[in-house]
């Protein structure tokens, strides 16, 4: 299974802080996002991706603590037991 964690406004939107998705050979962040959307009643991909399917700036996506922008972005491979986290940090001070 793949562990999915939602933080802050994403958690509030989905009314849940975590879920699990069944892993399959060849999974990427992109495919895991699509599978997650299919299993969760509340639409949320529009909060993460723009009309062209690129991640919005503002929400960081981590795979096993690593920001996907330092990996292969949405094409980052995801292995069984991996942990994905979605977090829109507050920018104010």
């Amino acid at each position, binding site marked *: 299974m793949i562990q999915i*964690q939602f*933080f*802050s*406004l994403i*958690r*509030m939107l989905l009314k849940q*802080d975590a879920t699990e998705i069944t892993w399959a050979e060849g999974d990427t962040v992109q495919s895991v996002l699509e599978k997650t959307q299919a299993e969760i009643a509340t639409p949320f991909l529009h909060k993460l991706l723009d009309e062209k399917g690129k*991640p919005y*700036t*503002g*929400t*960081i996506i*981590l795979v096993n*603590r*690593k*920001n996907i*922008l*330092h990996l292969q972005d949405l094409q980052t491979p995801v292995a069984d037991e991996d942990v994905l*986290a979605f*977090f*829109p*940090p*507050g*920018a*104010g*001070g």
Partner: protein
Amino acid sequence: MVTDRYARQVLHWGTEKQKIIEESSLLIAGVGGLGATVSQLLVRAGVGRLCLVDDGHLDWPDLNRQTLYGENDVGKAKLPLAKERLNQINSATEIVELQGRIDETFQIPTAIDGVADCLDNYQSRFALYNSLATGTYFVHGGLDGDHGQVLTLLSGESQALDTVFAGAVQPQGSIPVTPDNAVIIAGLMVNELFSVLWKTPKLLNRCLVISLADFHIDFLDV
């Protein structure tokens, strides 16, 4: 110095930890929403030296949360005001003013035991972190509306701030900030700064995520 001014906190954490606080030097980046309260609490606790960095002037929308200032201060530079008010609270703390905006040219003072990121934009935050000497603790705070986060990194060992928060850019326009959330996140930062000074950080590579909307607390490992 009045000998019993720290009596109530020493009852809680003891004389050894108080001594460490009084011998410590911290850099506070920004004396606005977070930094005004962070610096005030540190001075009340008796920190030995605070280096304050800021380049702003007080504006009316600042007054809802920037706890060192009042109506008569609007239009004035924050840094000298902060020094004056902090000196009034505790004259035992040395206050060092570093006027200016933090960018890639920023040079951090020597002999700093920890840094509080009380800034309001990612560009300056990333520049501040990248200016740190190896082995410096960095306590980040950020907020938006009724949620916020606190994270501690150790330069040279942790992932860099601009690595963890890659892609986090400044939203357009003013960010919603409430008085309660600013003070709560600032208080949590100070709690963590004490732990950093005592070499027992609780949030090292672990982001505390707070949502006041439903009093939810999460931890995001980074």
